[in-house]
């Protein structure tokens, strides 16, 4: 097993790793894919790691994260306790579960499932071998022109991840739950790649979780490419619940053909440093994208959401709402960027970022950008940061509700705007519980992941009963 032990992440180390392991890395590549990998490696080498003097990174400093020592593996680790790791899921929710351990598809015996309705789900590495033409058709399409160092590094190094293909006209009957658990006895650096293709008029509901199993430090560099065909629909959830020593760089590239509809939810509940790089490209008319985000951070946690929406075609609508509560020494960054190109008439784009700071040591940087080259548009953005509404506080307390409960009620209401948009009822219920627990400071690194109700017999205890009557 090639592995390199406990080194910090530097350009030199990565270049060295690539060159000495080039053969292993490319073992599943077609000629075309190998070419893409080499090109990405060159780009990665020329870009180097970011620093805070770069505009896109001025508010997120990776020095400390990159500086830790990490193991790097070119093979999946033994799956000894995999049964334990994936033992439960969302209560009462029937999902198709796909597991990843440290980024590697947990194959058990079936590396690639082919369902009766034509849906293919499983290991990307396996898909490269089994469906090379299908993979080649989409792979790197979204990331080809991107000069982002982490995406380039991912393309150069990725060896596995998840591949989902929903054929034209097929509606996936139940939600797919993709769980990536980071679990290693030492610090680990992992990169994985997902490729998700939803055909014309097809639909998919995807719950995508990133979780830590223990308190060990980790550095994850994830890239997902998501393609929505004409009139396709994707209901997408990204749940992030990693430990405080983790760094997660997560890029998602959504490409929407005409009439496609994307609902995406980024729920960041815990993590040391999280950077979400969300790119939405309208590649046809009449597309719609709703991108919602909720982040609840405390201690020295850092959340950075970069959201870029490219209105490259007419008649598309987009709506971004990102909301955050920052406690203790937490730091939040929101950088939204809506681009309306010259000929994209009848564009309707909205962008909102709202934050609540609970202490004088929490910080937020909010940068909601609009770049508009067409006059036939409706665009608006807003950003607000502040405390809980004092009028509402007074009203609640006048009705006899204690200050503490009133604060909790209002914070929950603040989060509810995002949580309430979760379309899967069981998932919404679960997330509501998580958010309540999180806001009361009870949800530190959960024993396991968000959806792994590892302690089902330990009921959630709230001062306020918010359950619906």
């Amino acid at each position, binding site marked *: 097993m090639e592995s390199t032990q406990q080194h910090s992440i530097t350009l030199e180390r990565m270049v060295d790793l690539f060159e000495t392991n080039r053969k292993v890395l490319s073992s599943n590549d077609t000629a075309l894919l190998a070419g893409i990998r080499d090109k990405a490696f060159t780009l990665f080498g020329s870009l180097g790691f970011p620093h805070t003097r770069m505009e896109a990174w001025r508010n997120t400093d990776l020095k400390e994260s990159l500086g830790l020592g990490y193991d790097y593996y070119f093979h999946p680790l033994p799956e000894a306790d995999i049964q334990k790791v994936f033992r439960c899921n969302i209560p009462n929710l029937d999902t198709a579960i796909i597991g990843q351990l440290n980024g590697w598809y947990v194959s058990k015996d079936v590396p690639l499932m082919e369902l009766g309705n034509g849906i293919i789900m499983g290991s990307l590495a396996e898909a490269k071998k089994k469906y090379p033409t299908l993979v080649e058709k989409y792979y790197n399409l979204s990331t080809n022109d991107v000069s982002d160092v982490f995406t380039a590094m991912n393309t150069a190094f990725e060896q596995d991840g998840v591949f989902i293909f929903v054929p034209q006209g097929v509606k996936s009957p139940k939600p797919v739950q993709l769980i990536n658990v980071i679990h290693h006895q030492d610090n680990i650096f992992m990169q994985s790649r997902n490729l998700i293709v939803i055909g014309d008029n097809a639909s998919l509901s995807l719950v995508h979780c990133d979780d830590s199993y223990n308190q060990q430090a980790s550095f994850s560099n994830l890239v997902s490419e998501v393609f929505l065909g004409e009139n396709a629909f994707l209901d997408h959830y990204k749940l992030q619940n990693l430990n405080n020593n983790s760094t997660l760089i997560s890029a998602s590239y959504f490409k929407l053909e005409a009439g496609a509809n994307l609902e995406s939810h980024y729920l960041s509940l815990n993590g040391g440093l999280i950077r979400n790089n969300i790119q939405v490209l309208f590649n046809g008319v009449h597309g719609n994208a709703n991108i919602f985000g909720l982040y609840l951070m405390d201690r020295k946690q850092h959340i950075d959401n970069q959201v870029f929406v490219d209105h490259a075609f007419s008649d598309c609508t987009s709506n971004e709402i990102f909301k955050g509560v920052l406690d203790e020494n937490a730091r939040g960054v929101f950088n939204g960027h809506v681009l309306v190109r010259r000929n994209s008439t009848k564009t309707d784009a909205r962008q909102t970022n709202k934050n609540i700071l609970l202490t*004088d040591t929490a910080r937020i940087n909010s940068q909601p950008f609009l770049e508009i080259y067409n*006059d036939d548009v409706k665009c608006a*953005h807003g950003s607000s940061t502040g405390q809980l509404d004092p009028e509402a506080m007074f009203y609640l307390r006048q009705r006899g509700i204690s200050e503490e409960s009133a604060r909790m009620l209002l914070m929950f209401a603040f989060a509810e705007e995002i949580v309430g948009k979760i379309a899967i009822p069981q998932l919404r219920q679960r997330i509501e519980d998580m958010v309540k627990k999180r806001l009361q400071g009870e949800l530190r690194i959960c024993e396991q992941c968000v959806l792994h109700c590892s302690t089902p017999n330990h009921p959630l205890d709230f001062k306020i009963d918010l359950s619906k009557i």
Partner: protein
Amino acid sequence: MDTDSNKIIDEVTQGDYKYGFVTDIETEFAPRGITEETVRYISTKKNEPGFMLEFRLKAFRHWLTMTQPKWAHLTIDPINFQDIIYFAAPKKKENLEKLDQVDPELLATFNKLGISLEEQKKMTGVAVDAVMDSVSVKTTFSETLSKYGIIFCSFSEAVQKHPDLIKQYMGSVVPYTDNYFAALNSAVFSDGSFCYIPKGVRCPIELSTYFRINAANTGQFERTLIVAEEGAYVSYMEGCTAPQRDENQLHAAIVEIVAMKDAEVKYSTVQNWYPGDKNGKGGIYNFVTKRGICKGNNAKISWTQVETGSSITWKYPGCILLGDNSVGEFYSVAVTNNHQQADTGSKMIHLGKNTRSIIISKGISAGKGQNSYRGLVKVTKNAINSRNYSQCDSLLLGSQCGAHTFPYIQVGNKSSVVEHEATTSKISEDQLFYCQQRGIDTESAIGLIVNGYAKEVLKQLPMEFAVEAQKLLSISLEGSVG
């Protein structure tokens, strides 16, 4: 919108620049280009004390280590800084104590611009410091003002007569290290205005500086410094024009404002430098650093700007709110037509407790104009209970222009409230139709609507300026609105 109104828009936005004439006046130039020698030449020419030369040289040496910033949303042809003449002055007679000793050509120039330098014509009740190319040619009303202890004179005069004040405050708000253009200005600035309002004095009249670029191939680098002592008040206006020339000309200015406890300074600008022609040829490159500091408690600084000129505008008038309860305001209307580009906005830095700031920005883009709002609101950890409200609206006239909004918001404590809102829209066809149905032609209707759109800002201007600004707004959009 139908083609007819597009045509009208084109017509409306292509009004001619009325200040494009050149005055034939004898001018003294520094040699082209910039070296340490140029800096020394300027200092010698102005007979400056040692500290000034020292300041200039430090700034120049620092400038050499810097590169031109590229972060703005602007496409700028490379500037050859060695091809610019850094000092041009109308040759003046030995003694300029009396008005009749001012070159009549100069007087005529300013009269043509609608600015009277003759004290007897004090109808307007505005004291004027007129700056032609690099040099202040005449300051009016100085004597009247001196009765109140107010100093209002050219920067050069202040350097000679009030060196201590200059030494104390120059560079205290905008240090020469601040940015590329501030460093350049600090090295080569030639003149500008200086204003000092003593403790408790309310300046009885509007003060005004009028800037005019005349000579070809020259850059204009002026510097304004306003100091308002405790409890003082002053309203200050600045206007600018330049002749119509094919080549781009560089203007890099600095304005510094210091407001002590309970002082209030209101600074209004109507910027109408030559914007270049319809094809984007020529025009002023306007790189300006304007900043005020509310040093004492309850101080207030208010910036109002109407930006219609220049081919490139790069300016971010800001306030450092150091004193508790201090207030910063920024009201802006920026018009970009034809090939004009503007990247402008404000910086509000909240350091003191209970500090408040407001930003109202109205961008109007027409033709192929690119209009960007860029602003920073920073609330530090100690600036508890602070408040900012920003509203940045963009109006697009025609399908070839662009409107962009780049707010940077940083909040570092729990008790402050910061809100930013922005909308982008075009003139609604309903509004147009409504006006037309009442018998108003499209062009006038657009003028009306645009003026209404900008009203919130225009009403902040002193009366003398508001009328001019309103006219300017319509003229700059003549043939452009869509």
